[in-house]
């Protein structure tokens, strides 16, 4: 389904999606983030600070509550995610491509109930990048594109005064059908313009990871390279790179206690990540990844070697967040290229 939507009518579209919680990019405190909106959506945003991964994989997820009276067995009560449907507007292609990658992880081997329960209720309404929004974008070199539709339910393309709106999935069709009257059929000129815009977007120069197909082998060969520590020397282990990444999915599970006697509390999942120094530390104090070099290597190798080995695609989608937001300038493109270049 391909349609044209007058830019002025986008709010009407949103208003028509009455059973949906609509999330759109909002500029607040100098940063762009996805927040609930009701009309007046602005889609002139660069990439948001945080990816939209939190909708299916929130930073904090309560698994269950537990209660126990002294001398009795504990009582567990599952906490089930609510059934609210969310439609996220303005998802950039790289973030869109993050979605199937998260799906792979959370469905591999066994299905993660909590992820699935939320994921099935999220629709991603994407916005193609007419021009890479950041100097650190590199989607093309990791198999993506500024006009990719991977992971999206709808793709919108900005044609100046109107959007070219394309349904990618059934969910997407449903979203468009909810306000069918607002949409117009695209003319031949529209079609031509979309092609033109897309072609220009793809042609726009980007930074690049070189020869991404060869990277897994090169990384594998560089496991012991001293370059890792050299490149990671400035890393402060803050994990910003992973918290903001659309595809990082590591987490922690902890019990939070509200009352000791009678015992009352919850078991919660929270985001965690491989850049935190104690992520892999055994209780004995032994840490398999004991320095920033090993941890940077893990992040990069996970994205560019292990994930491809398991799922046949790099996990990184080239959004460039980890580069732009790293407080000390650790630059994944640079790291991958350097290590690959130096590989035996």
């Amino acid at each position: 389904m391909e349609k044209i939507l007058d830019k002025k009518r986008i709010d009407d579209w949103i208003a028509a999606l009455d059973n949906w919680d609509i999330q759109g990019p909002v500029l607040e405190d100098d940063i762009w983030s996805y927040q609930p909106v009701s009309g007046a959506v602005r889609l002139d945003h660069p990439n948001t600070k945080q990816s939209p991964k939190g909708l299916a994989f929130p930073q904090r997820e309560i698994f269950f509550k537990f209660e126990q009276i002294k001398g009795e067995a504990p009582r567990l009560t599952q906490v089930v995610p609510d059934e609210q449907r969310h439609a996220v507007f303005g998802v950039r292609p790289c973030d869109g491509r993050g979605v199937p990658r998260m799906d792979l992880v959370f469905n591999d081997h066994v299905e993660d109930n909590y992820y699935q329960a939320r994921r099935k209720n999220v629709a991603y309404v994407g916005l193609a990048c007419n021009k890479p929004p950041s100097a650190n974008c590199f989607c093309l070199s990791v198999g993506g594109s500024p006009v990719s539709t991977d992971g999206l339910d709808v793709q919108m393309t900005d044609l100046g005064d109107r959007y070219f709106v394309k349904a990618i999935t059934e969910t997407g069709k449903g979203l468009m059908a909810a306000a069918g009257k607002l949409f117009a059929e695209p003319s031949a000129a529209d079609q031509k313009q979309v092609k033109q815009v897309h072609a220009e977007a793809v042609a726009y120069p980007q930074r690049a990871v070189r020869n991404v197909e060869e990277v897994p082998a090169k990384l594998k060969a560089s496991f012991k390279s001293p370059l890792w520590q050299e490149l990671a020397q400035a890393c402060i282990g803050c994990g910003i790179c992973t918290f903001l990444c659309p595809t990082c999915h590591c987490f922690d599970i902890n019990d939070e206690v509200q009352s000791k006697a009678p015992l009352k509390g919850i078991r919660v999942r929270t985001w965690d990540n491989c850049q935190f120094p104690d992520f892999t530390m055994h209780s004995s104090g032994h840490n398999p990844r004991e320095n920033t070099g090993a941890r940077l290597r893990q992040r990069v190798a996970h994205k560019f070697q292990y994930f491809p080995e398991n799922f046949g695609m790099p996990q990184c989608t080239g959004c460039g967040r980890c580069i732009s937001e790293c407080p000390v300038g650790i630059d994944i493109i640079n790291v991958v290229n350097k290590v690959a270049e130096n590989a035996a």
Partner: protein
Amino acid sequence: MSEQQVYEPRIVAFLCKWCSSAGSDLAGVSRIQYPANATPITVPCTGAISPMYIMSAFNKGADGVLVSGCHIGDCHYIEGNYLARRKMKLIMELLEFIGVEPNRFRMSWVSAAEGAKFAKVVTDFVNDLKPLGPQDKLKKAEHT
């Protein structure tokens, strides 16, 4: 909470062992009545009160926190209360700064001879806290 029940602020009161705790004992011996809102925790010295205790009490839902110790110059450990005075001043400033009502944190000097003063300090504190209502700014949300 039934309708008639009035709001009763919950106070954690850190009392030093030598002066204020003894002062509160004197209030008891003298049978001076004061509100039951403050639960005392006796510590060796006000100097032993980490600012973390204050934060933690608020985090766990205290409506008010009281720190009470020996008058300056009377510290059993010579200078513990001097150190406390500085630390408590800082935490108090910080709490006010982020918009916590200044009346939620209180410090007083109550000597072992000041039973009546102890009762008054608690009474005043409770009276000052009542109009503020429950403290929910720093309180951990109930798990829902």
